[in-house]
């Protein structure tokens, strides 16, 4: 059999394979450089940026490991838009694959300002982070409300021609309706899920272990919950879905694809294995060959119910 075709497209972003790095996991890509060939992956989503630099949450602790997962409360510490454009983006683009910028703001206009500045750059797409559980204003405050999500999406839509991808929080009752609202507002794709709101308590001290009090759970612990939400959203919208949440190996990625995701993103797994994305690309290729499937897009949403 000829080599299977791993290519997928998300809006106008053509990817050589469906595997991305999730936002916030490896910063802007520079520190991980050399530990794997990130240019081999379909796309790299960089750490969420805001107009102004942010300090993030107070430390001790910002992350706590939990069974098959971790809870983080980084709080969107980032270098800000200007430093991002000047110092970080060029190095990220040098990896040689699609770079997706992730943006956040306190108001729809804050998001739009970031999008406008990115419009003239070489980023392949813009992810809209309306799902960060670790900031008081903005972030998840938008994502838990379908109307507010649509408002942010529309503001970003008006500011850029790049493909825009709202990233949803799982911490809602009806995720499909949030996805539909974003689609109507002009989203080219939907990505999900961000982390699940979570808390870890130091029993001796009777205090939260995270200085911020609460955080977001990621890693294999959330995978089945994320697969279900991806499936729900994929059935509710026409635009492509980027699925993530606990992906560790090719089998996990295939679950998301079969559930309806056109592409997947790998997060927490990178902390154990910086080459997890590359390993997953190889595993998906092997699966397609073994099953005689010519292109990965044939597998998207192929779940039989």
């Amino acid at each position, binding site marked *: 059999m000829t080599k299977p075709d791993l290519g997928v497209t998300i809006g106008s972003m053509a990817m050589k394979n469906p595997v991305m790095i999730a936002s916030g996991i490896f910063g802007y890509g520079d*520190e991980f450089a050399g530990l794997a060939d990130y240019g081999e992956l379909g796309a790299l989503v960089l750490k969420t940026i805001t107009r102004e630099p942010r300090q993030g949450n107070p*430390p*001790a602790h910002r992350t706590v490991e939990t069974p*098959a997962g971790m809870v983080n409360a*980084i709080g969107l510490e980032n270098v800000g838009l200007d430093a991002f454009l000047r110092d970080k983006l060029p190095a990220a683009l040098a990896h040689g694959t699609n770079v997706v910028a992730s943006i956040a703001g306190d108001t729809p206009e804050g998001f739009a300002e970031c999008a406008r500045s990115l419009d003239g750059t070489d980023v392949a797409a813009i992810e809209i982070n309306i799902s960060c559980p670790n900031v008081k204003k903005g972030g998840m405050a938008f994502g838990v409300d379908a109307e507010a999500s649509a408002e942010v999406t529309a503001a970003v839509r008006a500011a850029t021609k790049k493909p825009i991808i709202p990233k949803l929080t799982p911490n809602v009752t009806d995720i499909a309706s949030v996805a539909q609202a974003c689609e109507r507002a002009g989203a080219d794709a939907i990505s999900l899920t961000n982390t699940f709101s979570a808390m870890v308590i130091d029993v001796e001290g009777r205090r939260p272990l995270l200085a911020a009090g609460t955080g977001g759970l990621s890693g294999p612990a959330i995978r089945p919950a994320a697969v279900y939400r991806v499936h729900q959203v994929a059935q509710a919208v026409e635009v492509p879905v980027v699925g993530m949440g606990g992906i560790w190996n090719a089998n996990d990625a295939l679950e998301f694809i079969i559930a309806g995701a056109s592409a997947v993103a790998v997060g927490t797994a990178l902390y154990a294995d910086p080459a997890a994305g590359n390993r997953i690309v190889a595993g998906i290729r092997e699966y397609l060959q073994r099953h005689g499937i010519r292109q990965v897009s044939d597998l998207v949403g192929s779940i039989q119910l």
Partner: protein
Amino acid sequence: MSEPHTSPPPGTQAPSGSGPLRLQAEVLESERVAANHRRLLLRAPQIVTTAQPGQFLHIWCHPPEEIDRPPSAALLRRPYSISRLRPPDGVEILLRVRGNGGRLLAAKAAGESLDIIGPLGHGFRISPGLSLAVIVAGGIGLAPVSFLVERLGGLGVRVILLAGAETDEKIPFRVERPQAGGATLPEMEALGAEVTFVSESVEGVRITEVVQARLDELPGEGAAMFAVGPRAMLKRLAEIARGGLPLQVSLEERMACGLGACRSCVVPARSADGASYKTVCRDGPVFDASEIDWERLTP
């Protein structure tokens, strides 16, 4: 394992330049050194040629070939200081077993391999004019000290080691009390350090009290202090040393990436623009005491 021990795991690139390496290191020896403490000797020639005292390794605690399977415990790598180099190819770590990760590492037998990333972070800075180093270590803080003592000794620097712990069992070294003069650590003496060890349970004093008492004997010029241990000890030393001796401290914080990317492991830093954070994994683990905002550093 029969694979070449130092080749990068499948799917990884052999990185060029001076960035951190990822490699499979064979366990050459594993030995109990005290209750709950083990010494592991790893075969990692690439680390030997580049490592500096104070740097650490980020270790996957499960078998390297199981990286494709998500574990439910010890999902993240664990940071351990490079304790000593055994040229041409040996790297030692000393570990105190604390939880799941430590237990898994302590159970590794000679012949098994570890997936490690390193050397990571910034180690101790040794200024050219240094003639006397006072190393202060508390408990498992002694782990990176052998490497530092050896490096300083090689540079002809006189080394005074002041070490302390709650009990003799809380350090990865043998304690001797030859005469009424006090306790010592023979292995550290063999490396050329002038050692004072105090255990709170036997000598009944804290190491910071010893430091305070001995500060006056030190020359004003050419001396510096290097400290590794619990935050409370480091905080106290920062007060004691303020204005006088230059002080470098090695800090710990919970990590995810270990590379400076995720911003998990930050500590409050003093900087011109007011409040800012530095990462233990990349900016540290060794900091100049003046870089740290001690008021805001949580215990």
